[in-house]
C-alpha cells in the first residue's frame, strides 16, 4: 500500500513567503530610491536659487559701489573698477565713464562655477539729482559651448 506524501504543505508556504518578501523588498527599495532622487532634485533647485540670488546680490553691490564712486566725484575708470574688484576679484569688469554726458557705463561678468556666468551691463546718470540706473543686460547663463562640444549629427541650431 503506498502512502501518499503530504504534498507541498510547508514547502509551499516557504516559497510563498520568499516571493512575498522579495516583492515587498523590491518595492521598498524602489520607493526609497525614488524619494532620494526627488530629494536630490529639490536640493539642486534650492542650491541653484541660492546661487542665483547670491550672484544677483553681488552684482547689485557692484552697482552700488560704482554709483557711490561716480556721485562722489570719482570719474577715473581704474578707480571705479578697483572698487568693484574688491567685491569680486575674479569678475571681469569694464567701466566706461562719460563725463560729458554724465553717464557711467558698467559691464560686469561674474563667474559662477562650472562654466556658468552672470553678466550685467548697465549705466547710471543723475536724474533730478538722484542716481537712476538703466539695466541693459542682467543674465545668468551657462558658458558658451565650444566648437568641439557641438554635435552636428542632427539638423538643429545651437543658440549661444
Amino acid at each position: 500500500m503506498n502512502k501518499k506524501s503530504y504534498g507541498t504543505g510547508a514547502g509551499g508556504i516557504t516559497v510563498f513567503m520568499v516571493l512575498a518578501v522579495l516583492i515587498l523588498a523590491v518595492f521598498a527599495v524602489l520607493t526609497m530610491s525614488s524619494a532620494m532622487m526627488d530629494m536630490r532634485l529639490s536640493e539642486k533647485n534650492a542650491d541653484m536659487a541660492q546661487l542665483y540670488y547670491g550672484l544677483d546680490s553681488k552684482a547689485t553691490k557692484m552697482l552700488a559701489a560704482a554709483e557711490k564712486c561716480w556721485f562722489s566725484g570719482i570719474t577715473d575708470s581704474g578707480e571705479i573698477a578697483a572698487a568693484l574688484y574688491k567685491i569680486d576679484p575674479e569678475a571681469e569688469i569694464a567701466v566706461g565713464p562719460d563725463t560729458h554726458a554724465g553717464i557711467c557705463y558698467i559691464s560686469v561678468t561674474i563667474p559662477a562655477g562650472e562654466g556658468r556666468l552672470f553678466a550685467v551691463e548697465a549705466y547710471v546718470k543723475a536724474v533730478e539729482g538722484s542716481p537712476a540706473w538703466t539695466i541693459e543686460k542682467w543674465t545668468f547663463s551657462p558658458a558658451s559651448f565650444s566648437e568641439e562640444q557641438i554635435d552636428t549629427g542632427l539638423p538643429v541650431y545651437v543658440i549661444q
Partner: protein
Amino acid sequence: MGAGSKSRTLLLELLLTVFIFSVCMVICASLLLAASKTASDSRWLSEAVFAAQTVAESFKAHRGDIANWQRPQAVGETSVFYYDSLYFSRPDIGDANNSPVSVYLYTADGVAMADIMVLKPGSDQVYVLSVARLASEVLP
C-alpha cells in the same frame, strides 16, 4: 511516531518561516517609512524655495516697501510672513500648517538687503535666501 516527528518538523519550519517573514517585514516597513520622510522633506524644501523666491521677487518689485508686501505680521526691521500650500499669505498667527517666512531687512554699503528665512514647523530645518536692491531705489 513518524507522523509526530513530521508534525514537529512542519511546526518548526512554519515558526521559522513566520519569524523570517516578520524580520523582513520590519526591514521593509522601516525602508518605506524612511522613504516617506524623505519625500516629505523634499516636498517642504521645494515649497520653501518657492516661498523664498516669492518674497525675494516681492522685495525687488515693490522696491523694499513693506506696506505693499503681502500682509506681514510685524513691521520694522523684521517682518514675518505666513504662506499656505498655495503660496498665498495667511494672516493667521501660529498656524502650524504654514511655514513661517521671516524677513530681516537692513542696509549696508548703499545696498538694501533682505535675508529671507523659511522655517519648517516642528523642526529646526531652515532655508535661507539673501536678496539685494540698490538703496537709492528703495522707497523711504
